[in-house]
């Protein structure tokens, strides 16, 4: 029904009428979101008890790195969304274009790892530890938990890229690609709350 209208036009995409991706993956994503949500609220309420400590420690963070990483993650997410769109549309170049977009997304994700990794290196060189302060405990756990998800997401994207190159995904048969994409967007979504919370708000 809603998918049929697009076949007459190369510019129009099939309209997905239901949840995109595997339902088990979405249940997993909701559990992940809950875990991050608890973390965010714990940070916010811990900070409310000692705003001066948190604000002073936050001032030592590299906001530009946070900004660059936000731009890298939203760009990566957009490229993955583009890859899903072109593969869903189909056509002779769909696999090639989709794979190229996924490669771009992986490059952005690797950029995130490099920027965040250099931030961690600077923190550790300055003597930051989990036990340094309540802020450093929250900062390292929260960003570290997210960092781990980025690494895992990159492994997922690598698999999606390989499968896309191999032509495994086709219009109407791209559940795996949609599921992996949803995971990567979740990693992006979480960062969009984490960045202002940890880096900016004081």
């Amino acid at each position, binding site marked *: 029904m809603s998918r049929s*209208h697009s076949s007459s036009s190369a510019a*129009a*995409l099939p309209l*997905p009428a239901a949840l995109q991706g595997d339902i088990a993956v979405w249940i997993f994503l909701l559990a992940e979101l809950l875990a991050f949500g608890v973390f965010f609220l714990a940070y916010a309420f811990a900070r409310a008890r000692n705003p001066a400590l948190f604000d002073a420690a936050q001032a030592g963070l590299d906001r530009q790195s946070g900004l660059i990483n936000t731009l890298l993650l*939203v760009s990566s997410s957009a490229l993955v969304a*583009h890859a899903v769109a072109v593969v869903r549309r189909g056509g002779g170049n769909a696999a090639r274009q989709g794979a190229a977009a996924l490669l771009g997304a992986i490059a952005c994700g690797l950029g995130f790892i490099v920027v965040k990794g250099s931030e961690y290196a600077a923190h550790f060189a300055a003597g930051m530890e989990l036990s340094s302060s309540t802020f450093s405990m929250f900062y390292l756990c929260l960003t570290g938990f997210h960092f781990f998800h980025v690494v895992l997401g990159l492994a997922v994207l690598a698999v999606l890229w390989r499968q896309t190159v191999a032509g495994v995904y086709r219009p109407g048969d791209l559940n795996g690609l949609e599921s992996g994409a949803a995971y990567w967007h979740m990693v992006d979504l979480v960062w969009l709350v984490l960045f202002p919370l940890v*880096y900016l708000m004081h």
Partner: protein
Amino acid sequence: MQTRDSIHSPLTVWLTLVVATGITFFAGEFEGSGPAGRWLVIGVLALALFKGSLVALHFMELRHAPAVWKWSVLGWLWMVVLGIAGAYLKGTA
């Protein structure tokens, strides 16, 4: 229909996200104290809500999903943002 779901849609959403991220960053730079600080906290969180909703509805394609899934994610976003707002406004009161 073609405009809303065209192949260029991720590009439009991406551009909006980039602009909103820039505004968020500069709002964070100029955060003050007192009432001005409180309004900036609200503004930054409103932008996070806006950007998160864009990702959920467009990139995760929840705009076409059954309401229970759409509102599970959007509800999570609202709960988290409102909870953070409560904690920060309490902390600056």
